[in-house]
């Protein structure tokens, strides 16, 4: 069965303390993996799309990487404004997107 699992569920970091979020998947024939950021009371905001193993993309303090089984979202020297829930999503058959449950990140000043 296709699955997308994100870990940890919640992560608290001190400002400047780098870490990584994980998204593992068991979807066969991966056609892409998407990362979104969601702030409280708002809809998800697109961050990255990765299409093939070995691909990496960066945006400010965020860097997303993809292997054949999982993706990592690395956060370097985070700031309080990086606090949010980070969601990953993969397309299933029929172009539906299967979202993970997210990692809630809190960055403490």
């Amino acid at each position, binding site marked *: 069965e296709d699955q997308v699992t994100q870990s940890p569920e919640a992560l608290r970091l001190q400002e400047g303390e780098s870490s990584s979020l994980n998204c593992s998947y068991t979807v066969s024939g991966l056609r*892409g993996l998407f990362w979104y950021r969601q702030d409280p009371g708002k809809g*998800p905001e697109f961050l990255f799309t990765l299409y093939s193993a070995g691909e990496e993309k960066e945006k400010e303090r965020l860097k997303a990487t993809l292997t054949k089984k999982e993706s990592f979202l690395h956060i370097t020297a985070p700031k309080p404004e990086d606090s949010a829930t980070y969601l990953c*999503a993969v*397309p299933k058959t*029929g*172009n*539906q*997107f299967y*979202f993970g*449950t997210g990692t809630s990140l809190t960055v403490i000043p």
Partner: protein
Amino acid sequence: EAGVVQSPRYKIIEKKQPVAFWCNPISGHNTLYWYRQNLGQGPELLIRYENEEAVDDSQLPKDRFSAERLKGVDSTLKIQPAELGDSAVYLCASSLDGVPVYNEQFFGPGTRLTVL
């Protein structure tokens, strides 16, 4: 450029009452999605439109949920009658034409529904 607009932002109703949500996608985006997001979960697709046509509604509970997208622009999602388990955030998203895996989805702020 205006983003995806949704209204209302919040709705509180009694169970068995009807409720409707409205979405205006980004101009030029012909693909429109309705998602439901329960607390602590990721969004789950309810229905996807390509212009006026519903091309993926397999997850829509058709006994009580209905949706329409007249003229291929605005869309309305309706629940009648609402049940306690329908309490969630209902998100609308839009994207450009083409294969969804290659097109970024832009989400609206959502409508938070509480059914009492």
